[in-house]
């Protein structure tokens, strides 16, 4: 089997941000994304979510370059203002041209 290395970036954020986040991630080079509804709490925990649909968990499988851009972008545009968590892990994929 011919598995290739990629990064899985997981972003948990307020559901109201969905449209924006998807637009931004796509612009930054993510070729796809998967979203699930979630709820939770964190150290900041100053949220609006109760009324507007809790959190979303966005997962993107990307290469290192896009990962770098995404993290940088989040650091500037999301982390300071929004309830937002993010972590990265190493994954392997077949069909690497898709990711």
């Amino acid at each position: 089997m011919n598995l290739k290395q990629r990064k899985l970036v997981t972003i948990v954020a307020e559901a109201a941000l969905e449209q924006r986040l998807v637009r931004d991630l796509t612009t930054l080079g993510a070729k796809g994304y998967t979203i699930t509804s979630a709820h939770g709490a964190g150290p900041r925990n100053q949220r609006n979510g109760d009324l507007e649909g809790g959190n979303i968990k966005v997962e993107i499988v990307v290469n290192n370059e896009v990962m770098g851009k995404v993290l940088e972008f989040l650091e500037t545009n999301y982390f300071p203002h929004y309830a937002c968590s993010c972590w990265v892990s190493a994954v392997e994929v077949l069909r690497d041209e898709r990711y």
Partner: protein
Amino acid sequence: MLWEVALQNLTSPPVLAFALGLLAVLIKSDLRLPEAVYQALSIYLLLGIGIKGGVALSQSSFDEIWLPIIGALILGILTPLLAFKGLGFMTKLDAVNRGAVAAHYGSTSLVTFTAALIFLEAQKIFVEGYVTTLLAILEIPGIIVGLMLASKGLGRSVNWGESLREVLTARSIVLLAGGLVLGVVTGVNGYERIEPFFGTMFTGVLTLFLLEMGIVAGRRIPDIKSAGIGLVGFSLGFPLLAGSLGVLTGHLTGMGIGGSAVLGVLTASASYIAAPAAVRLALPEASPGIYLTASLGITFPFNLIVGIPLLVSLSGLLEGLGL
């Protein structure tokens, strides 16, 4: 008499359901409406209110509504300005947070509005059908004025085009305005077919919705303590002030007891659906812990229990004065 009226309000199923929701939080029950159901109920309420308003509007003449509409527009701009000033006096909040709160009080609360309608219906007081049009009109300007006030306190420039688009295409606005148009177009005849669903069921569905609102508001209670006495005072006092202004405007623009009372309630109420969504996106620097606690944790239950009967009484009083 006022007491009797207040009691009848307090013992109505929707208000009791709200109390049950609060209680469920207090005793740490895991009771919660599923997110999808909460969404569905708000869609139902917004669309239903819109349609009913539209049908009523299709029965109104331009002559009777143009003055109230202008009155509502003025209130929509004045209320957030007043709120912004008032917060300056009563709290130590910065301009960003004051603007955010002002946006909420400048806009309106659908559920408070609905509770007022149900209350007035139970009192057998006539309400002009076009009040829902006023609701729709009051929904947006206050948010925009609030955002503009807040933007003066920001260290950055605001993308107004984007923000306006987000405000205007938000779910709640599309449903409310869309419902209004739908109601106008379909008229009394078309509405007849869907009345059992959007009309007869309404109070029951609202009862379920208020159960959830009670739970959500209950979860805000811990925040009230940290809100500071100034904000609490504002959240209790401002609705009465702004509400009275609304009732007065109603009478001055030719509305009856019912319509004026509703306009008062609209002005007194603070948004917790459209405004938070808009403010969160356009003004992330503002703290939801402040604006949601004020609008949802304090003003909403206050209006539900105290504000509505008080403003209705005031409206009766003003009518008695020949206004």
